[in-house]
C-alpha cells in the first residue's frame, strides 16, 4: 500500500521549492503547472519542471505533476514533456467526465510506448472541482485502471456550488462524503483538498481529524509546516498499533491452526476487525505480519 497522507504542492516556477520540497518528507510531491503558474510563464515552468524531474532527486516521495486542465490547449504539451521523465502520476484539474479520463489514458499510453516505458505506468489523480465532477465521481474513478485517487476541490467547487467558505466548510460536507463513497466503491484512494490557512495549526488538525473520520486517506498540502500535523493525525497511535498487532497475530495463528474464529483477550474478533487491523499496520508502515 502506498501511503498518501500528504501531497505537497510545489509551484512549477519556483526552483527553490521544486528542489527542496521532498526534504520535508511528504508522502508525495505535486509539481504544479496549473494554478501556481501565470499564463505567460507556462512554457518556462514546463521546462523548469522537466529539468528538475530529470535530476530525479525526490527521496521516497510519490512524484506527480498537476497539468493544465483538459479544456486548455496546454495539457498535451504538459504530458508530452513530463511523462517521459518517469513520474509516478499526473494530477488532472477540473475533471468532470469519464470520457476525459479515457482520452487521457490513450494519450498517456501513446507517450509511454513511444518512450519505451511500461504502458500504464503513469497513474492518474483526478481533481473533482465542479458539481458535475463530484456527481460523476464513481464513473471517473472507474474510467481507467490508471486512476489512483479522486480528490474534491476547494474554492473552485464552492464557486460552482454557488456558495462561499464557512468556518467549518459545511458546504463541502456532501461533496466530501460522495468522494469517499465513490473512491472506496471504485477501489481508489480518497484524498482531501488543501487547508488554506497556513498559520492555523489547530484548525488544520481539526479538519484533518474530521476528514480521516469520513474515510479520506490523506490531504493535499500547500505549506511544508502542515505536513507533520497531518502525518500525526493519519499515523496510528502506539496503542492502536499494539492492538492491531495482537489482532493480526491472532488471526494468523488461527488460520495456521485451521480455526475460523479469532479470539483476542478472550473476545471474538470479526473479519472486518481483522481487516481494519491490517490496514492500521499498513498505515503505520508495518506489514500485516507486524514486521518492519
Amino acid at each position, binding site marked *: 500500500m502506498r501511503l498518501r497522507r500528504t501531497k505537497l504542492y510545489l509551484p512549477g516556477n519556483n526552483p*527553490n521549492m521544486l*528542489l*527542496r520540497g521532498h*526534504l*520535508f518528507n511528504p508522502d508525495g510531491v505535486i509539481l504544479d503547472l496549473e494554478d501556481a503558474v501565470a499564463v505567460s510563464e507556462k512554457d518556462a515552468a514546463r521546462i523548469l519542471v522537466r529539468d528538475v524531474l530529470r*535530476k530525479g532527486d525526490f527521496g521516497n516521495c510519490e512524484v506527480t505533476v498537476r497539468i493544465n486542465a483538459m479544456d486548455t490547449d496546454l495539457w498535451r504539451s504538459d504530458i508530452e514533456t513530463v511523462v517521459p521523465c518517469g513520474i509516478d502520476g499526473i494530477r488532472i484539474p477540473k475533471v468532470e467526465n469519464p470520457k476525459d479520463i479515457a482520452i487521457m489514458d490513450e494519450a498517456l499510453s501513446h507517450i509511454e510506448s513511444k518512450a519505451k516505458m511500461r504502458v500504464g505506468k503513469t497513474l492518474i489523480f483526478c481533481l473533482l472541482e465542479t458539481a458535475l465532477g463530484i456527481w460523476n465521481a464513481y464513473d471517473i474513478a472507474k474510467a481507467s485502471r490508471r486512476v489512483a485517487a479522486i480528490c474534491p476541490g476547494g474554492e473552485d467547487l464552492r464557486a460552482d456550488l454557488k456558495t462561499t467558505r464557512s468556518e467549518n466548510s459545511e458546504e463541502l460536507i456532501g461533496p466530501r462524503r460522495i468522494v469517499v463513497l465513490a473512491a472506496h466503491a471504485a477501489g481508489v484512494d480518497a484524498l482531501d483538498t488543501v487547508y488554506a490557512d497556513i*498559520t492555523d495549526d489547530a484548525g488544520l488538525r481539526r479538519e484533518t481529524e474530521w476528514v480521516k473520520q469520513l474515510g479520506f486517506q490523506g490531504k493535499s498540502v500547500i*505549506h*511544508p*509546516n502542515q505536513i507533520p500535523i497531518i502525518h500525526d493525525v493519519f499515523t496510528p497511535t502506539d496503542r492502536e498499533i499494539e492492538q492491531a498487532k495482537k489482532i493480526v497475530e491472532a488471526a494468523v495463528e488461527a488460520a495456521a491452526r485451521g480455526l475460523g474464529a479469532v479470539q483476542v483477550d478472550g473476545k471474538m474478533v470479526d473479519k472486518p476487525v481483522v481487516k481494519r487491523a491490517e490496514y492500521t499496520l499498513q498505515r503505520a508502515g508495518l506489514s500485516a505480519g507486524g514486521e518492519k
Partner: protein
Amino acid sequence: MAINAVGRDIPDSIPGYGDVKHFKGHDRRPPEGNRFGKRNRTAFNSRTDKTLPDIKAAISASGLKSGMTISFHHHLRNGDFVVNAVLDACAEMGIRDLVIFPTALFGVHKHLTRHIQSGVIRQIMGSVNGPIGQLASEGGMSVPVILRSHGGRPRAVTSGEVVIDVAFIAAPTSDKYGNLSGAVGKSACGSLGYAHSDAEYAQCVIAITDNLVPYPAPCIHIPQFFVDFVVVVNSIGDPAGIVSGTTRVTRDPMRLLIADNAAKLIEATQYFKNGISFQTGAGGISLAVAAYVREAMRERGIKGSFGLGGITEFFVDMMKEGLFERLLDVQSFDLAAVRSIGENPNHVEISADWYANPWNAGCAVNMLDTVVLGATEVDRDFNVNVNTEADGALLHGIGGHQDTAAGAQLTIITTPLLRGRIPCAVDSVYTVTTPGEVVDAIVTEFGVAINPRRQDLIDAAKEAGNVPLVTMDELIDKAHGFTGSMSPVETEERIIGVIEYRDGSVIDVVKQLKKK
C-alpha cells in the same frame, strides 16, 4: 610569502598592516610576556564631578590628536547615535587620520563614509558591513580594514597590540563620577560586555550618556575608576534600533528543517545531558534550533548549566523555566534580556575578555558544550567564511564565530545549501574566517556532514538513527549539480582587508574588487 595552515598564500608584510604573523593552526600561538599597562592617573578628591558640557569639550580634554586610535562598542547596534556624533565632532575640530576601533559597525554608520572620503578616518579595525564594506572592497580606504573576533579584539587590547588612545563609551546611564550602567535608562541596552576592555585599557575613557543620575548609579556595569570624563547628550540612540521586541521563532519551513537537523544532531551526542551549556545567535535558524533543543530538554528532563553569548528573551525564558541555571551575557539582544540582566542575579554580565579572549587564564567559550553558528560559505575542509559574500565584497564581521567554534565541544554550522542560485558549500571558501579544524558539523536542509576527525560524533549520529548524514563531498557535489560552477571573483592584487585569527595571526586576506 608563506602558505598558512589553511592553505592561504599570505605576504610576510602588508602595507598599512605591518608584519604578518602567519596562521599556523588553532592554539599554535601562545602568548608571551605581560599584559599591557595603561598610564597611571589620578582624580584628586577636589574633582568630584567628571561631567563636561559636550563631546567637543571631552575630545579636547582627552588630548585626542590626528592619527590616534579611538574605540566604540556596538551595544546600541543599529540605533547608535554616538559613533557618528563623535566623528562629526572630530571632523569639525580638524582632527584627521583617525584609526577607529569599534567592536562592530552597523548600517546606521554608513554616515561615516563621508569621514572616510574626507580623510578624518584613515583606518577601520573592526567589522564593516553594508555601504562601508562595499566602499572598502572597492578600494575606497587607503589602508586595509582589520577584522578581529570578539575574543581576538580584547586579546589585541590586553596584549598591547592595539593601544586605544580614547575610548568613547555610550552609556545608557551614568552618574557624574562615571559609574556606567547598560541596564537602565531610556536607551537601555543591557550588557556592556564589549566595552569593558576598552574602559580598562584605553589611555582615556569618555562616557557619553543621555541619562545622568545621582551618584552612585544603579546596577553598575563599568565602575567609576576607569572613566575620565562624562558627557550628557539628548539621546545616545534610537531604542527601536537598540533592542528588538519579542523575538519569535521562524515559521520558514526551510530554516525549520535545517534547525531540526541540527537539534537532532545535538540530541544524538554525549553533550546532550544534565549540565549542558549552549550558545546560539538570534538569527532565524539559530533560534529555531534553541526551540527544538528546549523541547527535547523538557521531554527528556534535562537541566542545562548556562546559556552564553548574545542573550535573547528565549534564553531568559529557558532560565526562568529552570532549563538553564545561569546566563552569561556579553550582549543583550531584546527588551526581555535587558530587563532580566537588571533584575536577576543569575543573569550575569560578562566582558568580551571573559567571554572569548584566548590570552587570559580561561575564557567562557572554553566551558561551552554546544554552539550553533552561521556561514556565508563552507568548504571541503570544513573551513567557514562569514566575512565575504559570493561577489567577494567584505560585508560581515567575525563576531564570536572563531572563538565559540574553537572553545565549544560541539561546533555546528547551519547554512542552506544554496542561497538563491549561489552555492554555500564549495570546494574552497573565498575567505577563511574559521578554520575547519575547529568545526565539527555542517548542517543543511540536504543533510548533516560531520567532520571526519570527529568519528565519535559520526558514531553517535548513526546510533541515533534519525540524523540525515551525508559527506561534505556529497553536499558540495549536490550544490554544484544544481548551480554549476561560479565564475571566479576578479580582484586586484591590493589587500583591503586582513582577517586575523583570534590569536592575532593572519588567517586570510581580502583583495580589492576589480572595477566592473
